[in-house]
């Protein structure tokens, strides 16, 4: 029987029970979003005592299924005020699943200023004062080292960085990866929720954990093999992502004229090859040393889109160096050196802020005159200043919407106060529908319409035309909500989008593990049900269809080179979430 753990930070105590029946068949996002909708007062202040944070492995996490080690974190978001699910790699998902833990809930709020570590082990949960050394500005890299010394290298961790301690709306939660670096549940400020509950970190000690029970091991193995083959045989999932990382998109979006530049005033840049995936690959290869072209964010990832980016001496600077971060700093904020961006990426991981929100906020601040355009050194200093709570740093860590207000701008690229990432909705219409309508605030991963619009995987739509986009954005959001519930990395989509056998194998693995017989129609229903509870929460929190709109400037400022504006009508946008 799986366990359901609740930690009450008001009384500094915990209870472990069987999983409530309603949640028994759920995992990942399906579980976190149902829980938040059931238990969190929708009108609560996200940093007040009535918010709750839930961490849950996916349905397949902890098994031998490839790429199944993503972990979901849910709460009401301090950035958007909506429901939030943010997922991450790292080792914690597999550990929790193997320990038989369905979910860990953190609720309440202690009196006083002390920060705590929640330690989860096979023999129970303990709540201890956080070591002084990891507080008051200590970065995540050092904090992981210090906690490794205290609890052992083998433990998993989820940490609030300094930004989380200060409850900044862009604070992330950092999950330790197998190499002692980190991956982040980035979006929506969930690190601030952890910080508000005075939880500096969660330490997971899997010593004594067994294997995840599998109802039909043979069927599971067989399906897992088909699934792995589908991933490895696909040129994107099997080779492309490992070679160039997600940063390969710089040149594609630049060619397509959908790479937002200079705070969303152009769709193309000239220095694309300074920051492209091709250049990243060549730089890592040439420099050698600790650099690695491909790397997995958790054990069992066979796609390995991550990498270790090293300096000229071959010393590790950062890992998980993603397209969206590089786009934000490199194209939107005009920082032309990949090294400069790498140091900022490291600093963002270290202080614990979402690298997308921060990069978009930085570009907005440049337009507002707070930072010189393209000045990587200035940005690095400001990001590092988040650890000390410096005023300008706090403004940036407040997120794009706050920066826009502080600077008196109308050109503020947000939906529901969350920064718009990396793909201009005017030039790639499908993704604009996702940004507008997702329950999460602007989020490309909620329904990755770039796939069929630009990459020609899974569909073939004209990115400048409306045709088919509404249905596509709806289907992608439904499918994503289901995949986010399995613990699978979203990139498995590339392997199964055009391969029905691969998709069936994913369903077969779930069936073999739980001894059930889901069909693809059931999986579709699961996705729909997740979106429905999220929409219900947002409605209760005061959101209406009028919040499902892109920033107005996109309707009247055409973007070059295609000189297009955002032209979906409100009625058309509202069709997306009708199902």
């Amino acid at each position, binding site marked *: 029987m799986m366990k359901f753990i609740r930690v009450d930070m008001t009384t500094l105590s915990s209870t472990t029970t069987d999983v409530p029946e309603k949640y028994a068949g759920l995992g990942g996002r399906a579980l976190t979003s149902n829980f938040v909708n059931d238990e969190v007062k929708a009108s609560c202040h996200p940093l007040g005592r009535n918010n709750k944070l839930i961490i849950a492995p996916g349905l397949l996490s902890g098994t031998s299924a490839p790429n199944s080690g993503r972990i979901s974190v849910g709460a009401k978001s301090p950035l958007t005020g909506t429901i939030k699910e943010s997922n991450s790699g790292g080792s914690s998902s597999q550990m929790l699943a193997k320990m038989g833990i369905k979910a860990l809930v953190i609720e309440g709020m202690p009196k006083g200023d002390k920060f705590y570590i929640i330690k989860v082990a096979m023999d129970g949960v303990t709540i201890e004062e956080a070591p002084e050394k990891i507080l008051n500005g200590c970065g995540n890299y050092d904090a992981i080292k210090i906690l490794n010394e205290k609890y052992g290298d083998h433990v998993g961790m989820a940490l609030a960085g300094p930004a989380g301690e200060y409850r900044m709306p862009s604070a992330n939660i950092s999950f330790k990866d197998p190499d002692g670096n980190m991956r982040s549940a980035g979006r929506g400020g969930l690190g601030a929720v952890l910080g508000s509950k005075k939880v500096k970190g969660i330490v997971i000690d899997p010593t004594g954990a067994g294997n995840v029970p599998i109802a039909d091991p043979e069927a599971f193995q067989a399906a897992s093999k088909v699934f792995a083959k589908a991933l490895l045989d696909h*040129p994107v999932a099997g080779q492309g992502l490992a070679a*160039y990382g997600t940063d390969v998109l710089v*040149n594609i979006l630049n060619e397509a004229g959908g790479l937002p530049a200079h705070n969303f005033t152009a769709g193309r840049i000239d220095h694309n090859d300074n920051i492209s995936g091709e250049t990243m690959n060549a730089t890592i290869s040439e420099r050698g040393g600790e650099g690695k072209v491909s790397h997995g964010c958790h054990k069992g990832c066979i796609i390995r*889109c991550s990498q270790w980016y090293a300096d000229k001496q071959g010393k590790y600077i950062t890992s998980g160096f993603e397209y969206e971060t590089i786009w934000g700093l490199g194209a939107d904020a005009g920082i032309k050196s990949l090294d400069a961006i790498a140091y900022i990426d490291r600093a963002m991981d270290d202080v614990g802020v979402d690298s997308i929100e921060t990069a978009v906020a930085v570009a907005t601040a440049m337009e507002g005159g707070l930072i010189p355009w393209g000045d990587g050194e200035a940005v690095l200093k400001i990001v590092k200043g988040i650890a000390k709570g410096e005023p300008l740093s706090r403004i940036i860590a407040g997120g794009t919407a706050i920066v826009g207000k502080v600077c008196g701008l109308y050109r503020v690229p947000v939906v529901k106060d969350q920064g718009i990432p990396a793909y201009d909705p005017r030039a790639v219409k499908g993704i604009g529908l996702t940004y507008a309508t997702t329950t999460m605030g602007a989020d490309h991963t909620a329904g990755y319409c770039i796939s069929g619009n630009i990459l020609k995987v899974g569909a073939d739509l004209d990115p400048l035309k409306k045709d088919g986009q509404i249905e596509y954005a709806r289907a992608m959001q439904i499918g994503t909500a289901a995949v986010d519930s399995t613990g699978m990395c979203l*990139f498995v989509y590339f392997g199964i989008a055009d391969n029905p056998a691969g998709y069936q194998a994913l369903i077969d693995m779930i069936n073999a593990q739980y001894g059930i017989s889901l069909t693809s129609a059931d999986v579709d229903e699961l996705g729909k049900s997740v979106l429905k509870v999220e929409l219900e929460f947002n409605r209760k929190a005061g959101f209406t269809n009028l919040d499902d709109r892109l920033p107005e400037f996109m309707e009247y400022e055409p973007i070059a080179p295609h000189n297009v504006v955002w032209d979906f009508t409100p009625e058309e946008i509202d069709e997306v979430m009708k199902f």
Partner: protein
Amino acid sequence: MKITVRLFATFRENREKESTIETAPGTKVEDVVRTFNIPPEDVAIIMINGRGKTLKDVLSEGDVLALFPPVGGG
């Protein structure tokens, strides 16, 4: 007529990333692809002047042709 050809990702291995070539009117994308010794079936994304196209599309003077193998991210 002159066109510019841009290659990306693995297509750059042992090839120039950008070149301007002289070609006859009526040249199709697949003709250019062959000139570069790229098997047409390896081309996943084709853009002319930033718009998605196919192997059968015909090029015009001054066009910028971009060719990508299957790549993706997110």
